[in-house]
């Protein structure tokens, strides 16, 4: 049992990864290709990057428990005189007649309509590109891939000029409509649909007399679910975190999403006569990221399988 061949037991020769594989080679060794020996040194080295990722978030969490005087007078990673997290949250939500809640509602609207619509268009488009051959298909591929390389910010100024001539600036539409296109989402769904939907199954449905719409809705759509969750999460992040587009499109604070609102609160401190509300900026920042982090944690099984499929070569 434990005395297998020496080469196979040394860490240098056990190369690999834990994943379910052919059971034949795995059976008898303690440390095999599938289950290599754990290594403390590597864990500690990688933990440096882990700390780098988490320390600023810890700072945000600690800072949101402090009052403004404590923020200015105590060290960033120590707690203040008083624990004011709930007070801060209440103040953030109440400030300026509850404008933060309005921004939150706006952000949710942009996400539901923008990211939801983008995901829907990406599913339809990705499925169409993966499973059909039609005139112009190659041109679409070239144009969409080319479009990925066009800086979104380079597009935003002409988009603004066009939308202002159409009278759409300073309305929610000016944020929602550009959010509807996610070339990356289309690309991901395309790759995913190629692998996830067997053409035989579509043929069988057609033989049974199902229309194309019905084949899509009842055969393809359930199979595309993991990819859909992935695309939905990434378009949600893109919309939730969008800054440049709403910055130029919106003038009226009533339509601001959270990102622009927070930035406006921060800018308030540097304007003459403006009230510095860093405690609210910090607590508001925390409230802005919590829903997304929760979504990523809860849905990780789905988006990770979707991403893996998206990166499959061949």
């Amino acid at each position, binding site marked *: 049992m434990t005395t297998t061949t020496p080469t196979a037991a040394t860490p240098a020769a056990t190369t690999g990864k834990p994943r379910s594989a052919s059971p034949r080679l795995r059976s008898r060794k303690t440390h095999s290709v599938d289950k290599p020996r754990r290594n403390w040194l590597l864990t500690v080295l990688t933990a440096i990057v882990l700390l780098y990722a988490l320390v600023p978030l810890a700072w945000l969490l600690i800072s949101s428990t402090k009052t403004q005087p404590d923020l200015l007078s105590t060290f960033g990673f120590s707690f203040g005189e008083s624990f004011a997290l709930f007070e801060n949250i209440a103040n953030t939500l109440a400030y300026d007649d509850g404008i933060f809640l309005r921004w939150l509602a706006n952000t949710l609207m942009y996400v539901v309509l923008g990211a939801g619509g983008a995901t829907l268009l990406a599913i339809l488009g990705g499925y169409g590109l993966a499973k059909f051959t039609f005139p112009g*298909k190659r041109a679409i591929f070239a144009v969409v891939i080319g479009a990925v390389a066009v800086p979104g910010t380079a597009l935003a100024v002409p988009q603004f000029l066009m939308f202002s001539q159409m009278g759409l600036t300073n309305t929610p539409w000016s944020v929602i409509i550009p959010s509807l296109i996610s070339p990356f989402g289309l*690309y991901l769904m395309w790759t995913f649909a190629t692998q996830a939907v067997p053409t035989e199954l579509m043929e069988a449905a057609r033989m049974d007399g199902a229309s194309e719409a019905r084949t899509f809705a009842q055969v393809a759509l359930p199979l595309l679910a993991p990819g859909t969750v992935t695309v939905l999460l990434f378009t949600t992040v893109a919309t939730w975190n969008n800054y440049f587009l709403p910055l130029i499109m919106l003038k009226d604070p009533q339509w601001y999403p959270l990102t622009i609102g927070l930035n406006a609160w921060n800018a308030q401190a540097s304007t003459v006569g403006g009230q510095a509300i860093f405690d609210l900026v910090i607590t508001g920042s925390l409230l802005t990221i919590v829903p997304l982090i929760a979504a990523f944690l809860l849905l990780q099984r789905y988006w990770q399988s979707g991403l893996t499929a998206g990166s499959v070569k061949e």
Partner: protein
Amino acid sequence: MTQAVVPVSPAGQTTETTNPRRGDRAGKNRAPRSWRGWGFVGPFMLVFALVFIAPIAYSLYISVFRTQLVGGTQFVGLDNYIRAFQDPQFWDGVGRVSLFLVVQVPIMLGIAMLVALAIDSGRLYGKDFFRISVFMPYAVPAVVAALMWGFMYGPRFGLVGYINEFFGWSIPNPLGPQWILLAIGNIVTWSFVGYNMLIFYSSLRTIPVSLYEAAELDGAKQHHVIRHIKMPAIRGSIAVAMIFSIIGSFQLFNEPSILQKLAPNSITTYFTPNLYTYNLSFSGQQYNYAAAVAIIMGVFTMVIAYVVQLRGMRKDA
């Protein structure tokens, strides 16, 4: 395979060509060529035309005009482009994002690669915790990331002042003019290291275990496995990550735009080409010139992304 434009693209290997390697799955049952596919692709392309193609066409159009208070709008040909190529402020921004690109992108992708390899090796204690934690900053909006780091850098209630006081060091102000680019590079690295790590990790996971088993039987060492199995297998995703990073560097805007409030003396109105375009448009009302600058930057980005893509493909073959 045959005419894939992006290394990991599905084009040409789906239903268009009969690929011998997967002919039994996709090739044999390929759909007949018809217009039916447009029913699915149409909605995307319609909106795409409205928010991508039309604005590009429109900015090409306005970039050859000039609007003046006296004299109105007149056709000036390529004058705006010539002006951009002679504009030191434009080149200042281009130089800055290029420097950013050659320093920040390799560091970020290098760290991402090392973490991906470490997690994939299966030798970490608690690897799921590592994977999800390193990825977490991706979910933080650029606004929050920039504000958070800006506060930590800043003199008002920043950490740098405390550290200097406590250890007797004299770390310079990260928001000062000499260090601001580094400070921004750190914010961008923090935000995207996990995202790139996940791209690499996902593609490492697609390597079949049988390859590792064969390597083990041959007595290959870990570094051989990394060099000869893992790296070649993820070349495509390295190219993809590089293209996204190049685009990200050239359109650098959010972080400097937000930090400007905290460090007004360090970030000029032409700090990056995008900031310049923005300020030309919305402070200067010079839409025509701004369009020309945006087009030049778009072309730069596409050319460099295309070159990287070609190189990635050549190594791929």
